[in-house]
């Protein structure tokens, strides 16, 4: 029934750790920034610094953090089911992949929108306040994008579900 093999489950395991990890950090930073600034710790990052930006950039947002954690739980659930109910495990993988891809697209849209927002005055010969850089962008290349890319290979394994769903 399930066409997913163990390499995919290894990938899913990695995601089931990374998503909640980044999600928790993001939630923490968001909670501190929005509600409890005296606790501190707003500067935590878990990535590679490139120029003035971190990749991935964990921007403070408690709700976004919760979202990432939920996606992590979905992948974890698929691993939990992989032995008892492989068919259903595939289902959770499928949904996890869809959500991961949606987040990836979201990040790209955000970046595009921010760039447009910075440079649109040029349309009528106006002035730009400050040039856009990856580091100055509120989102930047966030976990949504990176983890979405990491999750991408799952597509080939659960493609069969998509085909069955929409003939």
């Amino acid at each position, binding site marked *: *029934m399930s066409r997913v093999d163990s390499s995919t489950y290894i990938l899913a395991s990695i995601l089931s750790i990374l998503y909640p990890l980044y999600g928790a950090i993001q939630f923490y930073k968001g909670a501190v920034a*929005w*509600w*409890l*600034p*005296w606790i501190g710790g707003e500067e935590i990052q878990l990535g590679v610094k490139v120029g003035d930006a971190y990749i991935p950039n964990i921007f403070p947002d408690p*709700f*976004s953090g*919760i*979202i990432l954690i*939920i*996606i992590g*739980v*979905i992948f974890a*659930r698929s691993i939990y089911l992989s032995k008892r109910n492989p*068919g*259903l495990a*595939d*289902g*959770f993988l*499928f*949904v996890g992949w869809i*959500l991961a891809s*949606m*987040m990836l*697209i*979201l990040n790209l*849209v*955000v970046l595009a*929108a*921010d760039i*447009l*927002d910075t440079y*649109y*005055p040029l*349309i*009528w010969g106006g002035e730009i306040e400050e040039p856009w850089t990856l580091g100055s962008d509120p989102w930047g290349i966030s976990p949504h994008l990176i983890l979405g890319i990491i999750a991408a290979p799952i597509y080939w394994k659960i493609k069969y*579900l998509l085909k*069955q*769903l*929409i003939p």
Partner: protein
Amino acid sequence: MANVKRRMIKVALAGNPNVGKSVIFNNLTGAHQHVGNWPGKTVDKKEGFHRVDDKVIYIVDLPGTYSLTALSVEEMIARDYIIYERPDVVVDIVDASNLERNLYLTMQLLELGANVVVALNKIDLAEKAGMRIDHRKLEEELGVPVIPTIAPKKKGMKELVEKIIELVEGNPRGYSGKTLCYEPRVERFIERLQGEVASREEITKLLNPRWVAIKLLEGDEDVIKKLSEIEGGREVIKKGMKLREEMSRELGDPEVVIADARYTVIKDIVSRTVGELKRLTASDLLDSVLLDKYLGIPIFFVILWWWFQIAFIGSAPFCDILGDGFAALGEVLTGITGHPFIDYLFFGEYGIIQGIGAVLSFVPLIMLLYFILSLLEDSGYMARAAFVMEKAMRKVGLSGRTIIPMIMGFGCNVPAVYATRIIPDENDRMIAILTNPLMLCGARLVFFSAIAAAFYGAYAGDILFSLYALGVVLAFMVATILRKTFFRGRASPFVLELPAYQKPSFKVAAVRMWDRGSMYLRKAVGIILIGLLIIGVLTATDAETLTFTTDPERSLVAAFGRSLAPIFTPLNWDWRFVVAMIFGFVAKEIVLGASAMLYGAGEEEIASRLASLYNPIVMYGYMTFILIYIPCIVTIAAIRQETGSWKWTIFAVVYGLILAYIVNLLIVTLGHLLLG
């Protein structure tokens, strides 16, 4: 002369409607058929011939029926034919993909004592649905021959004919071999009555005793009638009614009991003959995940959040472009008329052009929100979301779908009010519309976050969160009250089809998006222009001289504010609060700017200025007032459009004001009481 007499074999075709009976009839009779009428009835009678070797098979296509009660003309025709015409064989055509329902008729044919051959039709469909039916086992279980057929492909026809001939030549006309017994507590009654019937020859000549017994227990009027015309029948009827009475007392309605007994046997048989159930389809699998007991709601929130983020952030640059564009337009056109009053009114900071720009700046947001909503609905997901949220939302008196406009309201109430279209029940929808303004929208957030930062320092976030929560709690309360008063009436019964998943159409989404955007534009512009005009005039007119003034403190609005100030003294308001609040009527973002103007401070410093002048409790009270009172004019326009009535729009405004006042008062009094 030939010793082989050409004996005509009489065969009747029986079965549920839509099982392929007519196809089989056509297969067997081809051109040799004739359609007439059953004598005295308006039902078609199809009869025909099939020749094989030296035999002639006369075939009658009985009307399709689900059972053989006395309730319908078709059923009467079918059973009377079998009883009186005594066909050599009754071919029961069974739809393999609907086995249990079809076997119900089979049970009754067996009760009748007919000589049954089962044609197991549509086995290809059954196979496609993942069912494997062991027809040999079925034969064993039923005690009658079972021939698999695929009527449209003419598969099994030859075997069917062969079996018919075999039965006729091997078996004498009459009763079938095995008797299928029902459960003991039912059989008890049947057997007692059966014995009674069997002892009367006149009856058994015509009718099968077991069948008579069962029918009497069921209270079959037609059998009673038939019996009463036979010698000895009346005593049997009397005994039958007594037993039926007894059965009724012990087991309940005999008709239902016997029907259940049949199905019990059917279930047993099917469980032993049908293997490998329907495989879980991809759609079922997806539903298992999306409707999961624990993860269903979280998944919904993920999708909701995503929808929001993409719509708000994605449309932001376009909104900015429009906003800036119109602001620039305003600047360019300033001074064009040479008349300062008109200038101010049209091109000033709070002028008409700005207003139109503000209205237009919502359009990209609304369009993007709707574009994605269309995709989500088309894909089939929204029905799952409604299902998953229904239970949780009902607890607070709202329908499941209300969650969507509610959450949208946190971004902006305007598209949220339009989004209430997705709520099917009118009452639910009205409540959703009327309570939506309590959702803290982005515009109010602008004002609140500035104040909160200045007044509450470290606790700013908590204060903001408390405002959000207050809005939600009040929304639930108001919704519950509204449900019990103006919008009473049971919630419409929740019946929702979960459509098949499908690839959403971008084209359709684009059309819907355009529709919505232009509808908003057409409707909103009217009200907003009027509102802006009024406010503009009031702000720019000196209260005493009734001439143009740029000093807001001297304007009509200020005079109006001062005159109203006494009402708000229990809330500890300065008259300027009143004026800023009135400005908020136009757009909540403006409250901050208006305050700045009134205190003669810049927008950056206004918050700290206020902090130095007023105490935090009073400010908190003021914020709750701004949170709850009338929606901004664009929202009002949307409410008017979606409710279709001025009455409810005015209601929204009025209840907002009243509720805001009450809550503000409570907070200020309690606050001073508790915190001094």
